[in-house]
């Protein structure tokens, strides 16, 4: 793992295009998903995806291989989104997703074992997708980082540049908010 991080750091310092190609390939799903969760908007997520990798190229020498590469990558992506929001594209992180106008994410290719399971799983996931768009982006973000990316609390704190206590409180509140929105949706 450390060797991986060192190899990445070395490749980034050298601005090695092959290393960057490989990283883009490797982290495409995770970065795009994070941006999609953060912005709630596929077009914006796509733009930020490209911009994030350009920033990785330009600031590659700043990656010191002490932290996980994905934490550093997510932090870059997050800062870009926040910078864009400050350049008056959006009023705040909460405004990224408008539940009235945004569509849920693209439909899945499910590999469930039966048609009924597929249908149930799909309905459940779609309910979660829609509910996710109804909770504030800063809750959505920590939920993704914790339960999808399975980052530790300290790693999430590094991405957010916030104390661990803030991360915990957002996770608790985010879970509660998601449950509450799901319950409302089901009623």
């Amino acid at each position, binding site marked *: 793992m450390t060797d991986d991080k060192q190899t990445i750091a070395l490749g980034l310092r050298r601005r090695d295009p092959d290393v960057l190609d490989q990283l883009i390939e490797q982290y495409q799903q995770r970065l795009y998903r994070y941006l999609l969760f953060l912005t709630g908007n596929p077009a914006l997520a796509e*733009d930020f995806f490209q911009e994030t990798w350009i920033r990785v190229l330009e600031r590659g020498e700043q990656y010191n291989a002490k932290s996980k590469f994905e934490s550093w990558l997510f932090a870059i992506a997050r800062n870009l989104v926040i910078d864009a929001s400050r350049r008056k594209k959006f009023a705040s992180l909460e405004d990224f997703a408008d539940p009235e106008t945004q569509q849920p994410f693209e439909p899945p290719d499910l590999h469930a074992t039966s048609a009924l399971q597929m249908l149930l799983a799909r309905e459940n996931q779609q309910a*979660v997708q829609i509910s996710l768009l109804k909770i504030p982006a800063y809750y959505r973000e920590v939920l993704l980082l914790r*339960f999808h990316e399975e980052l530790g609390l300290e790693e999430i704190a590094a991405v957010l540049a916030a104390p661990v206590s803030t991360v915990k409180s957002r996770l608790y509140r985010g879970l509660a908010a998601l*449950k509450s929105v799901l319950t409302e949706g089901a009623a």
Partner: protein
Amino acid sequence: MNENLHQRAQRLLAESLVEGIAAPDQIWLGQHLRDCADCAREAAATQELLQALRGVPVAVPRDLVARTQLRVRLRAQEADESSRSGLLLWVITAASWLLGVLSAPLVWRAFAWFGGQFGVPRLALVMGFVLWWTVPALIAAAAVLYQRGVAQGFASHRLPRESKTRR
């Protein structure tokens, strides 16, 4: 079973998901969930929610990776060229400065001869000499700053919106 036990169970359930709980708490929670149908239902619903959250599918747009790789390669090339031309500019500036230092006595003599021939006041000669020295340095500094500004402007403004025009 009183209300406090349920509240404790709910708290531990949430803590176990967010930050983990100690072994004795885990044992207590497991026991409580076996005894309390309501809390067990709540725990199952939460697990189902997380399962659904983990399973939220996201399809990366088909050619996004290829487009990004291309742009990153182009940007890397541009950065290399810019860095090479920047280095060249510094070398030229350094050479010009060195030449200026070495030729200063001769230039001053030339200014003194010119002043003697045409009766130019000494103050004007000194100012002319200072300008002879500072103008090239100022031009070089302006060129470096301009080049840096262009490179940064390119990096921060040109890139973001390209993919939108493709859709």
